[in-house]
C-alpha cells in the first residue's frame, strides 16, 4: 500500500510526526511505520488521519499492484 502521509503532513503546516501522533492518539513510532509502509493502519486510524490532515483516505492511501485482492 502506498501512502501520501508525509506529503499531507507537510501540506498541513509542516506538522511533525509527534504532533500528528498526538492528534490521532497513537505513538510517533506508529506514524513512522505507516509512512515507511511497514504498517497498514486500521480503517478507524486511516479515517482519523484523513480527517486531521483535511483530506480523504483515498488521497492518503492507495493500493499497489502487489496488494492482492
Amino acid at each position: 500500500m502506498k501512502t501520501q502521509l508525509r506529503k499531507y503532513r507537510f501540506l498541513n503546516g509542516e506538522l511533525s510526526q509527534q504532533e500528528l501522533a498526538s492528534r490521532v492518539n497513537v505513538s510517533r513510532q506508529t506514524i513512522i511505520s505507516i509512512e515507511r509502509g511497514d504498517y497498514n493502519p486500521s480503517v478507524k486510524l486511516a479515517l482519523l488521519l484523513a480527517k486531521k490532515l483535511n483530506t480523504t483516505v483515498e488521497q492518503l492511501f492507495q493500493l499497489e499492484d502487489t496488494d492482492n485482492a
Partner: protein
Amino acid sequence: MPKWDAISWWATGIFVVSAVLAGALQNDAFLFLMVGSYMLRPTLNALGIATKYTDERQMSIQYRSGNLALTVLIIGIIVLSLKARAEGKPSDDFNVLLIVGLATRALVGVLMVGDYRGAGVRISVSVGALWILFVLAENGLALSALPEASPGIILVLLGLLGIRQPRLSAVLFAILAIAALYVIGFRTGRGFTFYQAITALLVSLPLGASSFCFFKGSRPAVEGGSPR
C-alpha cells in the same frame, strides 16, 4: 516507545511494591509480582479494557509476540515434561499447564469468532472427541472401553443436537457443568484441592462455555451480520 500514561504508572507501582515487599519480607517470591507489571498493558489490551491508552500498532506487535511466546512456552513445557518422564518423575503438572494454555487459546479464539452456535458445536465436539481419543489410546478398539468413552460420546451427541436444538443443548450442558463441578469438587466433602480445582476447571469450563454459546446462539441471527 509507548506513551507514559495511567497504565504505565500502575505497572511502575506494581514493580515498586513487589521489590519493596521482596526486600522488606526477605521473600523473593514477591518478585513474581513483577511479571504483573510487565503483563499489565498487554493483558488489558487483550481484554479490551482501557482502550483509550491503546496504540493499535503496539497491539498488533503484542499479538504477534504473544503468539510466539506461547509457542516457545509450549515447547519449553513439552521439553520439561519429557525430561521429567525420562527421569521417572511425574509429568502431570506440565501436562495440565499445557492443556490449560491451549484450551484457553482455543476457547477465546472460538468465542471471538462470534458464531456462537458453531462455537458451541466446535467446543463440545472437540472435547468429546478428545475424550474418546484418550480412551481409545489407553484401551484400544475394545468394546469394554465403551463405558469409559460414553461421556465423550454424550458430549459429541449433545454438541450435534445443538445444531438443531440450541436451547435444549444449552440447558443440558449447564446441568452437566454443574453436575461435573459437584461430582469432582464437592462430593468428597473435603472441598477443592489444587488438582480437583484444575480438573473441575478443565471439565466444567468447556461444558459451561458450550452452554453459554448454545444459549447465545439460540437467538435469531440479525440479517447482515453484527453492526459493530
